[in-house]
């Protein structure tokens, strides 16, 4: 493991690509399940950047932040999927375009 001298910016570029893909998915898709998946991808990209920074400075802080991101992702997904079920029950669709009217 001691021979790993990956350039830091390559990892950051990978994280940027993942983040951009997540953003692209969020803008492209109108299905709420896919939008939640895109959010997951973006959170994951942020976590990758944190881990890379932690590896660069040989500090544990990056992994601590990763654990926080994990907790946030878990909370977000549980509430988000609860909302998906509610949306399906009340509007019989998963299309965000029909849910933009509040109290519809």
């Amino acid at each position, binding site marked *: 493991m001691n021979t790993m001298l990956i350039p830091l910016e390559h990892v950051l570029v990978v994280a940027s690509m993942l983040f951009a893909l997540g953003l692209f998915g969020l803008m492209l898709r109108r299905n709420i399940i896919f939008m939640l998946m895109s959010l997951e*991808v973006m959170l994951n990209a942020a976590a990758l950047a944190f881990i890379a920074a932690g590896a660069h400075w040989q500090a544990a802080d990056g992994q601590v932040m990763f654990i926080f991101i994990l907790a946030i992702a878990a909370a977000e997904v549980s509430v988000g999927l609860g909302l998906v079920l509610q949306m399906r029950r009340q509007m019989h669709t998963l299309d965000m375009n029909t849910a933009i009217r509040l109290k519809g």
Partner: protein
Amino acid sequence: MSFVLFYLAAAVAVGATAMALTRANAAHALIYLIVSLLGVAVLFFLMGAPFAAALEVVVYAGAIMVLFVFVIMMLNLGEESQREERALLDFGHWWLPGFLTLLLLAELIYVMGYSTSTLSGGTVLPKEVALKLFGPYVLGVELASMLLLAGLVGAYHLGQHFLARDRGRDD
């Protein structure tokens, strides 16, 4: 050797993510997303963060994706929703977000591609993470626990109707 592993895992992660977000079938997208998360876990491992890699597999690819699987199974999305999704995936819909995202990505790469520093190559062990987590970051741990509690209460509240309906069916 580990260089090759790194770039291979990065390519798998990015490719699988791209596939996941452009599928019409939610279940297929989910499998691609799991592959992507496993690829990122390999990246974590190669960067000297074995604990984070294990958490990525267990919590992200395991627990969080299982939640998605449950919901997709409960919703029972049929052929019709796949047709709708496919109709939304034609070029007319995705060229503008694609262009904007590419612009953003180019900027990010431009900003990040300057320096010539490398990763340290050492491994950060779980013990150091735990000492940090329950030392200087203990307030963050408390906040995260409150967030998770709020998430639990919120998910329970939102799922109440399903529980009530199932109970009514049993009677």
